[in-house]
Each structure stands twice: as structure tokens, then as C-alpha cells.
């Protein structure tokens, strides 16, 4: 019965989203406050109904109700509770429900927190958001319902893929989807503003918090997924330029470009059309990603296996929403005012350059992801576009972009000169050069490339710190005063600094890990040892043990570290797990972290013989933790900016400008 209530709630949410759209558009057309109020009420209602459906599905999973097909396909009574809950969004249908929950959640957030927005814009935004909800809830209700019952329920479920039974993977979809779908609000805002024909500084100020929230959540989602791949897939890779990873990376790149162009629109009233275009693109890429992951057109380890018919419906949804939005843009954009002249060397100029590189990078990722499909359709032959392509194209693009980043943060609006900026950045440049030189001396393979990467990373970190300190008055004021001013700097400044440091930290980790990784594989009998760098690993024992829903062979490996200072030793326990419900073997790696660097040990299959032996693989991944710390800093910077008073205040009207009368002519 309760499952039927879930199905009913889902249909109710679908209807309420339709009502939200209808009331919203009618309220705008008729300038009617009650109708606008009805749209807001429908938005809250749609959220409550979707949440109810979501909780019902969760209940079905927790109670292992195998009469529900989705539960039977993805759950198992032996599974730990957290993975029963995570399995709610582990399948195509359930994750569509999560997508809808985010969609209606953001709609209700606009209704609830948009108090300072002009009524017309708010009503229209809610209407567009409602339309999106209507379309996606409709898709879920009619083509992907998670509440389908089985006539003949099985006694036991098929369980969730063991690879997915992992705490990080369990929590990453909620972040990822909030990020993807967060851009829907930006999309709705942009469509509403285009209909109204008003895009100005105030508009940019209203859009920016939503873009910041979506971008930060997406950053967290991507990094959790990447971290999962790093330790779960068993060889320490953390980014594969896999189509599904690219699908999450494209909206991220566009979101990053949007955050920067929105600043120009907010402060200088310039780039209005471009900002709107990016606002529409970010969610378009989110939808493209949803299509790619769910349609089965791309081969990827992360893809949901669904039948192509469902994919083609998604393609129609994608084409219609993006087509409509872009048509509206082409029709309305020429009428958008674009003010604010600026010189080439200026803050605006630097941000335009930033956008040029970020947008090109996003386009490159899109091209690399979609080209195999086009090629296959045109020639009938397969083509692979993998990591080497992206390293050769995306790499240099971002390299140049990051190289000019610190300069840009120092430039003043409208017109600037590079001389004083160069002086303020001299110390950062000097240290970065030293760091690059050290890298050149240490690394043997790809030394030049690695040195350049380390240089850029240190340049970014120190450049960001220099900017913050210089803003606080270092060099002009006493130290005590600088300290006080640092504390009272707006959170937006801290947020920007933190995010830029995050980029540098990530780059440092990525470059050093790639160049300095040591890999060793050896077949060991009990008691035998192998060396990785300055670490000796001894295989002490291998025992079988039982987990809640798997059996495992667990090794105990003694780790002896030589090197500077006192030698130390510790124990690591990598495992090989067998999940009988899915008849799958999964390697559970052991990782030990020392100062941001990881020792990563994988326990291989038992090889029978006179004495049994095992293939043990071990990696030393220097600075690996920075790869994951960097994006978290970026997200933290975004959230810090989000908490800035200036954004929260979001004045309902343009800043009051004193009427500039003719000066002193009246006399």
C-alpha cells in the first residue's frame, strides 16, 4: 500500500509542477499576485510530494520489499543499512527520483528565499522551474517509475553492484545531483530574464548565489567520485577522461566561467549576453550529461544500463529545452544592453580571457566526448578519444589560463597597467621559479612538463596569498593593522583566495603524483618482502574472514620505512572480497597516508603451488591527497563567498545613485 502512496505522490508532484508552471506564467501575464502566490504554493507542494515519494522508495529499500522491481534488482537483505539507503539512487529510476527531488527542492528554495527578488522575475523563474519539473517528473512517472511492482516477487534481491557498496560512492550522488540540478535555477533565471528583456547588474547579483551553490556542490560531488575511483578501482587512477566523468566536468567548467563572467556583469554591467548564454549552457550540459549516462550511447564504467527508448525520450527533452532556450536567447540577446567600456589590460579584460579559455576547454571536452559518436555515425567505424587527446588539448589550454590567473586578480577595473602588478607578484614568481627548478632536478621523466606544472601550481598558491595580503594593505600599513584588515575583509575575497589556492593545490598534487609515482608488483610467498621507494613491505599472513555480505581473504603486510629520521613500521591490511550475491570479486586496497603522500597496496589473487603465493602490487603516490584537497578548497571557497553579506543582502533595487545634475551651470 505504501508503495502505491509513493507512486501517487510522484504523480502528484508531476501535476503540482505543471500547476507551478501554469500559475507562474499566468501570474506574470496577468500581473496577478494571487496567481503568483499559487505558483509558490505549488512549488512547495511539488517538493513535499517528491520528498514523500523519495521517502517511500527509501522505506521499500530499508524493509527489503522485493515486490518492488527496483528493490528486487538493486538490494539484498544481507546488505548493510547504509547501502540499502544508497541503493535508492543506485539505479536509473531511483537516481531520476533524486534528480527530481533536487529540481523541486531548488524550485521551493527560490519560492522560499527569493523574497527580495522583483515579483515579476521571481514568478517567471518559478514558472520555468516548474516547467522543467513537469518535464522531468513526467519522464519519471511515465517512462522510469521506480514503483513498478512485480507480480511474482523473488525471495531475495539481486543486490547492488559491490563496486558501488562504498561509503564515498554512497554519498556522492546527492552532491553531484544537487550540483547538476542547481544550475537549473540559473537556467530558469536566465530564461525569465530573457522573457522580461532585462539583464543588468542586479540580475547578475541574484543569479550568482545559485551558481555558487551549484558549482560548489558539483565540485564536492566530482571529487568524491574521483576519490572513490582512486581507492576502489585498484590502481590509483583518479581521472580517466571517461565520458561520464566528462559529463560532470562540462557543467563544472561552464559553471566556473559563469561565476567569473557574472562578476563582470554585476560590477560593470558588461558581458550581459555572454553571462546569460553561460547560464543557459551550464544546465544544458547537465542535461546532456544525464542523457549520455542514461541512454547507453557511450561505453563507460559509470553508465546506467537502460534501454535506448528511454534514452531517446531524454534526447527529445534535451533538444526541446536547449532548443527553446537558445532560440529565446538568439531572439532576445540583441536587445540586451551591454555597458562598461574597458581596456584590454584590466580586470574585465582578464576575466574575458579566463572565460575564453574555460569556454574553449568545456567545448574541447564536449568535442572529445561526442566526436566518437559522430564519427561512428558518419563512417560506421569506431574511434576512441582518450586521455592522450585531452592531455594535448585541454592541458595547454588550462595551463595558459592558470598562468595568467594571478595577474588578473591584481588588475583594477576598466584600465590597469602591468608594471605595479609585476612588482607585487615578484616574490610569488621567485618562489614559483625555485619550486619549478627543484622539480626539474628531482623528476627524471617528463621533467620539463612537470617543472612547468609545479611552477604554475606554486605561482597560483602564492599569487592568491599575495593578492589577499596586498588587499589587506601589506607593504603600506603596519603588521597589526594588516592583521585586523585581513579579518575584516569581505568573505567573498577570502572565498576567491581559497578557491584559487585550491586550484594550485590540486595542480601540485596532480603533477607530482603523475611524475613521481613509484609502482612495484611482485609475487610473494608468506614472509617474503618487496621494496617500493624507501619502504619495505613484508607479507606476514593471509587469512579468510567473513563480512556482512561477502567473504574475504585479508593480508597483513608489515610496512617498514627507512629514510630520514627514525625508522618506523606499521601494518596494512589489503583484502580481496567475494560477494556471492553478485558473484563478483572486488579488491579492497589498503592506503596509508604520510604527509599527503599515499602508500597504496593491492592484494592479488592466491596462486596455488607447493606454497601459496600472491601477486602484491604497491604504489607510492606522492602528494596524492592534494588532488582531492584542492577541489574541496574550491568548494569551500565557493561556500564562503556564498555566505558573504553582500550577496545575501541582494538589494531589491539598483544601488541608489545620486541624480547627477549638471554641475554648477545653473547659476
Amino acid at each position, binding site marked *: 500500500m505504501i508503495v502505491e502512496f509513493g507512486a501517487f505522490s510522484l504523480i502528484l508532484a508531476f501535476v503540482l509542477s505543471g500547476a507551478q508552471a501554469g500559475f507562474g506564467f499566468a501570474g506574470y501575464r496577468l500581473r496577478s499576485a494571487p496567481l503568483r502566490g499559487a505558483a509558490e504554493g505549488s512549488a512547495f507542494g511539488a517538493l513535499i510530494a517528491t520528498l514523500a515519494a523519495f521517502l517511500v522508495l527509501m522505506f521499500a529499500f530499508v524493509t527489503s520489499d522485493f515486490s518492488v522491481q527496483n528493490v528486487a534488482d538493486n538490494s539484498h537483505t544481507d546488505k548493510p543499512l547504509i547501502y540499502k539507503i544508497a541503493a535508492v539512487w543506485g539505479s536509473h529510476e531511483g537516481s531520476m527520483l533524486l534528480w527530481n527531488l533536487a529540481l523541486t527542492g531548488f524550485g521551493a528554495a527560490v519560492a522560499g528565499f527569493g523574497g527580495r527578488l522583483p515579483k515579476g522575475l521571481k514568478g517567471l523563474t518559478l514558472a520555468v522551474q516548474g516547467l522543467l519539473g513537469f518535464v522531468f517528473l513526467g519522464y519519471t512517472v511515465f517512462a522510469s517509475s521506480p514503483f513498478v511492482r512485480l507480480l511474482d516477487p523473488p525471495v531475495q534481491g539481486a543486490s547492488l553492484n559491490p563496486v558501488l557498496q562504498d561509503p564515498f560512492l554512497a554519498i556522492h550522488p546527492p552532491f553531484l545531483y544537487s550540483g547538476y540540478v542547481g544550475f537549473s535555477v540559473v537556467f530558469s533565471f536566465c530564461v525569465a530574464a530573457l522573457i522580461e528583456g532585462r539583464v543588468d547588474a542586479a540580475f547578475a547579483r541574484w543569479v550568482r548565489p545559485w551558481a555558487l551553490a551549484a558549482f560548489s556542490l558539483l565540485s564536492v560531488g566530482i571529487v568524491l567520485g574521483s576519490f572513490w575511483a582512486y581507492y576502489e578501482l585498484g590502481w590509483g587512477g583518479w581521472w*580517466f577522461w571517461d565520458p561520464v566523468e566528462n559529463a560532470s566536468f562540462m557543467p563544472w567548467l561552464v559553471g566556473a566561467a559563469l561565476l567569473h563572467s557574472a562578476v563582470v556583469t554585476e560590477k560593470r554591467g558588461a558581458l550581459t549576453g555572454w553571462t546569460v548564454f553561460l547560464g543557459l549552457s551550464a544546465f544544458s550540459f547537465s542535461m546532456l550529461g544525464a542523457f549520455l549516462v542514461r541512454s547507453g550511447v557511450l561505453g563507460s564504467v559509470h553508465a546506467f544500463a537502460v534501454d535506448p527508448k528511454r534514452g531517446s525520450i531524454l534526447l527529445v527533452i534535451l533538444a526541446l529545452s536547449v532548443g527553446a532556450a537558445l532560440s529565446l536567447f538568439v531572439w532576445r540577446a540583441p536587445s540586451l544592453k551591454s555597458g562598461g567600456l574597458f581596456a584590454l589590460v584590466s580586470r574585465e579584460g582578464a576575466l574575458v580571457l579566463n572565460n575564453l579559455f574555460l569556454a574553449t576547454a568545456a567545448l574541447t571536452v564536449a568535442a572529445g566526448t561526442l566526436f566518437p559518436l559522430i564519427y561512428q555515425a558518419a563512417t560506421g567505424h*569506431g574511434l576512441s578519444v582518450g586521455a592522450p587527446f585531452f592531455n594535448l588539448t585541454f592541458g595547454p589550454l588550462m595551463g595558459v589560463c592558470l598562468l595568467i590567473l594571478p595577474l588578473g586578480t591584481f588588475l583594477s577595473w576598466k584600465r590597469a597597467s602591468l608594471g605595479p602588478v609585476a612588482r607585487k607578484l615578484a616574490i610569488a614568481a621567485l618562489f614559483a621559479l625555485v619550486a619549478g627548478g627543484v622539480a626539474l632536478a628531482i623528476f627524471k621523466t617528463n621533467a620539463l612538463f612537470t617543472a612547468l606544472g609545479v611552477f604554475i601550481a606554486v605561482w597560483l598558491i602564492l599569487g592568491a596569498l599575495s593578492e589577499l595580503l596586498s588587499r589587506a594593505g601589506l607593504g603600506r600599513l603596519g603588521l597589526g593593522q594588516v592583521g585586523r584588515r585581513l579579518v575584516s575583509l569581505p568573505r567573498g575575497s577570502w572565498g576567491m583566495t581559497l578557491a584559487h589556492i585550491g586550484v594550485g593545490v590540486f595542480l601540485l598534487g596532480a603533477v607530482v603524483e603523475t611524475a613521481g609515482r613509484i609502482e612495484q608488483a611482485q609475487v610473494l610467498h608468506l614472509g617474503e618482502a618487496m621494496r617500493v621507494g624507501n619502504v619495505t613491505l613484508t607479507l606476514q599472513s593471509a587469512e579468510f574472514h567473513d563480512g556482512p555480505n561477502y567473504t574475504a581473504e585479508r593480508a597483513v603486510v608489515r610496512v617498514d620505512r627507512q629514510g630520514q629520521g627514525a625508522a618506523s613500521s606499521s601494518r596494512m591490511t589489503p583484502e580481496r572480497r567475494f560477494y556471492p550475491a553478485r558473484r563478483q570479486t572486488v579488491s579492497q586496497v589498503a592506503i596509508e597516508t604520510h604527509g599527503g603522500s599515499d602508500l597504496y597496496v593491492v592484494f592479488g589473487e592466491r596462486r596455488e603451488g607447493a606454497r601459496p603465493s600472491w601477486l602484491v602490487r604497491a604504489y607510492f603516490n606522492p602528494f596524492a591527497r592534494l588532488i582531492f584537497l584542492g577541489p574541496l578548497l574550491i568548494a569551500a571557497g565557493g561556500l564562503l563567498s556564498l555566505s558573504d553579506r553582500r550577496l545575501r543582502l541582494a538589494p531589491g533595487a539598483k544601488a541608489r545613485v545620486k541624480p547627477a545634475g549638471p554641475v554648477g551651470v545653473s547659476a
Partner: protein
Amino acid sequence: MSARTLVVALLGIFMLAGAAGDPAERLTDPKAEGRARALFREVRCLVCQNESIDDSEADLAADLRRVIRREVASGVSDSEVRAFLVARYGKFVLLKPPLDLSTLALWVLPFAALGGGAWLALSRKPSPPPAPLSPEECERLKGLAASPGDGANAA
């Protein structure tokens, strides 16, 4: 086998990945081994979802590694190895699509987009420049400049 089980089966293969360093497979000459490993990273495992044969533990990947190591050890150049692989499996086997007429669009696009974008940005006319001052306004301006004291005092 349904698409779903296929994915799961492939995931299974994916899970056991990372065996290019298996001591049983390695070449003794470190230089040749380095060259072989670099080639592995450019070659797709044909039965996996999206991995190089350097990462994959699938049987076919191991076979390809053996073939490439043998070729490298016998002194065949990198480009000859690639040509051999393409002749046998098609361009699909290379993770880096070779630059030719059919892939020109892919390789040129990033740089064309950058150039085009830069050109657009530079040729951008933000808004029509303010209209030039009319003769009367010029006169007034001259009068203002000539009058003693600043505007505030004059008011």
C-alpha cells in the same frame, strides 16, 4: 546476456585492473620496458569500457601487451607498432585519434574555438560610443573651463 549483466561483467574485468606491472610480463631491458609502457597507455583495451591496456587485467589486454612487448623488444619503432595495431583492430584501438582528414575537425576545433573566441572578444563593440559633443556643448564646455573657480563655488 542482457546489457545489464554485460556491464556488470565488464565492471568485473575493470575491477581487477592494473596488471601491466606484473613481473611475469616485464621486459628485462628497462628502456624497452619504458617504451612499451608508454605505448600501453595509448592503446585501448578493446573489451573494456574505457581503459588503456596499461590499466586492464582483461585477457585480451594481456595478449596485446605481450604482442607490443615482443615488437618493442625486437626493435620495431613506436609508429610501426601503432600502424600494426590500427591495421589489425582499426583506429578504435588508439586512445589518441591519429590526425588525418576524418579527425581534422576534432583536433582543430579547440584551437579554432580559441582563435575565433579571441577574435570575437577583440572585435566586440560593447555599446555605441557616446555621440560627439554638439557645437553648443563644446562652447559651453569651453566657457566652463575658462570661468574662474570650480563648479561648486560657481553654483
